[in-house]
């Protein structure tokens, strides 16, 4: 087993990985950019190395600097977390070349799954259903239109190298196809440097259900059941749960077997996730494979009782899985809400800044994986996710009630967060009855729908503001707290205002 590892990431996932490393008696090395010098992951690490300036390309995405930090600290392995360098096959190769273990899959498997149409072909060969569609060679617009008619409208035009909704167009009738191909291709070129697009059947209101797999270097591959991640905003998952409310034992066996086949087909090792869309007839279609630890892995951990990061490290160190498919047992229900620094009242505008007061929820059935603390200034440079709030209970309705309780206990001021958004969603009858789909938020989220009792709290807010103002007025320093009006600033800058 390793005696020291470097975590090439920041925030909550860096903290998450360090926790398990410490439990395994492995020393941890944090890396940080300039603005992350006082971040929680740096505070909790055994060692810490600065990478450089705050923008990701000069720090967390800079392979040379990350590798230098690993060598300088004597780390034997690197855990990449998610995002940043986690799905970068070149980085994995460079680790290997320097004799540093990359805690993740082999570079070849990452590449195979990174190119969407190649992954689709591999799935089809492995006997795993894929959404009907084409490869990236579409030919001229007549041929493309013929292919589209064969699939049947509506269809999606998608970037072959794509992800995150970039280079994607929904086409509902043949006459819009040509322009959609042109727009998507041009967007794909600027986003990924590759204009290749392909066609895929558009499923209406599908569920997003993914399977966690683990594969060791001794030929053992198992799945750990599914996660339903249908609640998405801007193609980003925001609430995940395990198990899926629509799952049956038989369907789990079939989908799990498909997930294991995909992992075997690409020579996978370590933890990975096979994503599917599931339609109303419970037919499932391979979507893509994520070759890393997922943000939402804790819901699987709560329900299976396994520590996925421990498994990742053990697999990377060459240990056998020590777990058969029959030994994987699911118990109860877990939910996760991703808490973002965004203002739900202003169209989810980013809300970086100083956390002035904070109390985090705890107690029975609550886990928080967080990268923040009171007094921390959330930087403007990175993803706005602050923490992941996870609840577990024997039943789904209890897990939902527990999440509502935990969200209500979560108090943060100084920045805006998506906590009120989640309280709104969780209180929706369609959420409680588990009628989930990837267009749930479009269909049901109403930002102006107040929680019961909110109006009474508004009055209390007014009193709180007055109490604060009375203190501020009493002290000389009070004024300094409040930024000046931009109007005044403007006037000072260019003399337009008198």
């Amino acid at each position, binding site marked *: 087993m390793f005696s020291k590892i470097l975590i090439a990431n920041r925030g909550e996932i860096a903290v998450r990985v360090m926790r398990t490393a410490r439990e395994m008696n492995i020393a941890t090395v944090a890396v940080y950019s300039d603005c992350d010098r006082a971040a929680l992951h740096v505070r909790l690490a055994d060692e810490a190395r600065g990478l450089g300036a705050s923008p990701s390309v000069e720090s967390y995405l800079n392979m040379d600097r990350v590798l230098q930090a690993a060598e300088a600290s004597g780390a034997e392995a690197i855990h990449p977390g998610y995002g940043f360098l986690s799905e970068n096959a070149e980085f994995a190769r460079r680790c290997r070349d320097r004799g540093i273990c990359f805690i993740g899959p082999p570079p070849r498997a990452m590449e195979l799954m990174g190119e969407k149409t190649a992954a689709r072909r591999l799935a089809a060969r492995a006997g795993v259903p894929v959404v009907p569609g084409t490869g990236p060679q579409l030919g001229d617009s007549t041929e493309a239109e013929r292919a589209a008619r064969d699939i049947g409208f509506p269809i999606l035009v998608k970037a072959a190298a794509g992800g995150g909704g970039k280079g994607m167009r929904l086409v509902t009738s043949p006459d819009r196809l040509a322009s959609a191909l042109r727009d998507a291709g041009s967007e794909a070129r600027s986003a990924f440097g590759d204009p290749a697009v392909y066609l895929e059947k558009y499923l209406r209101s599908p569920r997003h259900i993914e399977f966690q797999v683990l594969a060791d270097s001794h030929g053992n591959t198992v799945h750990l059941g599914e996660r339903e991640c249908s609640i998405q905003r801007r193609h980003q998952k925001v609430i995940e749960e395990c198990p899926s409310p629509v799952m049956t034992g038989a369907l789990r066996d079939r989908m799990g077997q498909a997930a294991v086949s995909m992992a075997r087909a690409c020579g996978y090792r370590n933890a990975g996730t096979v994503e599917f869309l599931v339609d109303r007839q419970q037919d499932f279609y391979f979507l893509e494979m994520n070759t890393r630890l997922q943000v939402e892995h804790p819901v699987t951990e709560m329900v299976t009782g396994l520590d996925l990061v421990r498994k990742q490290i053990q697999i990377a160190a060459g240990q056998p899985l020590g777990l058969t498919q029959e030994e994987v047992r699911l118990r109860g229900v877990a939910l996760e809400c991703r808490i973002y*620094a965004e203002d739900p*009242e*202003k169209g989810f*505008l*980013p*809300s*970086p*800044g100083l956390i*002035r*007061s904070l109390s985090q929820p705890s107690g029975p059935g609550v886990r928080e994986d967080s990268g923040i603390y009171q007094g921390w200034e959330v930087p*403007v*440079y*990175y*993803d*706005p996710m602050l923490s992941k709030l996870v609840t577990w209970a024997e039943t789904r309705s209890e897990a939902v009630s527990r999440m509502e309780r935990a*969200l*209500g*206990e*979560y*108090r*943060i*001021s*100084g920045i*805006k*967060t998506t*906590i*009120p958004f989640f*309280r709104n969603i969780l209180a929706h009858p369609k959420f409680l009855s588990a009628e989930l789909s990837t267009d749930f938020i479009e269909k049901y989220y109403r930002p102006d729908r107040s*929680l019961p009792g*909110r109006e009474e*709290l*508004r*009055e*209390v*807010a*007014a*009193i*709180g*503001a*007055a*109490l*604060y*103002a*009375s*203190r*501020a*007025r*009493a002290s000389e320093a009070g004024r300094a*707290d*409040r*930024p000046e*009006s*931009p*109007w005044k*600033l*403007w006037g000072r*800058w*260019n003399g*337009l205002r008198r």
Partner: protein
Amino acid sequence: MGQVEATYELVLDGRRRRLRLKRSGSRARVEFGGKSLDVDVSQLSDAAFSLILEGRSHDVGVSPNAGGFQVVVDGESFQVGLVDPRRDSPSTSGTTRAAGPAAVSAPMPGKVVRILAAEGEDVSQGQGLVVVEAMKMQNELPSPKSGTIRAVRVAEGQAVNAGDPLVLVE
């Protein structure tokens, strides 16, 4: 905290409301919305209070911001505007006026990635003027009114703070 007696003009949910506060230590009397309330106040920190009002317990976090205060009550967030008695108008970031020049200011710290209009150009209300990126998200800021671009204060690639004026439309 000693004795305090003051009247505030607050803006709640777009409406101006007067609040009269009389505080002596942990006891406060509040006149607001035609009601008179006794409040038991416990100061938890610079930015947080515990209030008990008619037997109900409330946990309150207050942060000053450009528009007044962000007040988090029992986990629910509210924006409370404060009218400056010396200027008699709520100081609000990005506030627009029907007549006269209107500024588009940065709603959060970030980086200007694109400028979509030039000085002297005619624009219509809602038209995107500047794209600011923060936390890996791009946000297009629309024109608050139809008019002419009087000034563009920023360049592409420039870092801006919350409240910084970016473009002036008249």
